[in-house]
């Protein structure tokens, strides 16, 4: 139990740092708000060596902390939506045989963006936002692939 809490705390701290670093890097993918998703690295790796409920708690804790510390409260809804959709899809894809951690991460990246787009469409009550779907899918695939490759490298070097 103590080990479990210690691991979770370290990973929440790591995810927080990654969120902070991400906020410092001004990467513009053409659509305001599209980002790399560095903090998802922790979740992707976590899915491979911690139990699911533990990773979920890390995810929710990270989102709440980031929103309170550096973010604004209106962004929290989108973070939660994207995070939970992404987590669920990654959990399901991981269960399918034949996908590596990179594939799981790609699915997570795309799902995150779709989840956020759906919530945004509902909030502004305008279905024209669907025009962002293809670009968000491409962005999600690319960022997910990058995070997945990093996750794979980390897993090869850290044996947990």
């Amino acid at each position, binding site marked *: 139990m103590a080990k479990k809490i210690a691991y979770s705390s370290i990973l929440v701290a790591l995810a927080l740092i990654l969120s902070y670093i991400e906020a410092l890097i001004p990467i513009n993918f053409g659509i*305001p708000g599209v980002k790399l998703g560095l903090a998802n690295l922790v979740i992707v790796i976590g899915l491979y060596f911690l139990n699911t409920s533990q990773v979920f708690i890390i995810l929710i804790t990270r989102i709440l902390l980031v929103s309170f510390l550096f973010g604004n409260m*209106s962004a929290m809804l*989108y973070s939660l939506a994207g995070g939970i959709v992404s987590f669920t899809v990654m959990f399901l894809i991981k269960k399918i045989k034949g996908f590596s951690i990179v594939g799981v991460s790609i699915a997570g990246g795309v799902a995150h963006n779709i989840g956020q787009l759906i919530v945004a469409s509902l909030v502004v*009550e*305008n279905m*024209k936002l669907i025009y962002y779907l293809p670009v968000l*899918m491409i962005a999600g695939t690319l960022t997910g692939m990058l995070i997945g490759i990093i996750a794979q490298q980390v897993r090869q070097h850290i044996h947990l």
Partner: protein
Amino acid sequence: MKTILNKKDIIFAAGIMLAALLMLICMNFGKQKAGTFIRITVDGKEYGVYSLDKDKVIDIDGELGHNQVVIQDGEAYMNEADCPDHYCMEYKAISQKNETIICLPHKMVVEVIADNSEGKESQVDIIAQ
């Protein structure tokens, strides 16, 4: 140290990319014509429809905050906003049909429409002219 991409990963990623590209092609098919009006909606309700032909500064004061949309040289952009993230001000100027600028914290959407049959040019606007 090597990156291992399984066959399924590659098929999956390629499938998403292909689907996205197909959608892009379909969406751009009817988009060649430039739009002539912009419609501003706040919280799902229409705020006003404005012609892109006339330069104009539009102040929108909703319950959630203030935004200023500027129409200049046939394009519209977000000039000012008091929302927390200012993402809306990072959008490039819009002029093509179905292009949008979104201010999520203020639940505001600026969209380009082809003609004003989708909504009447607001009365206030006509009087102001």
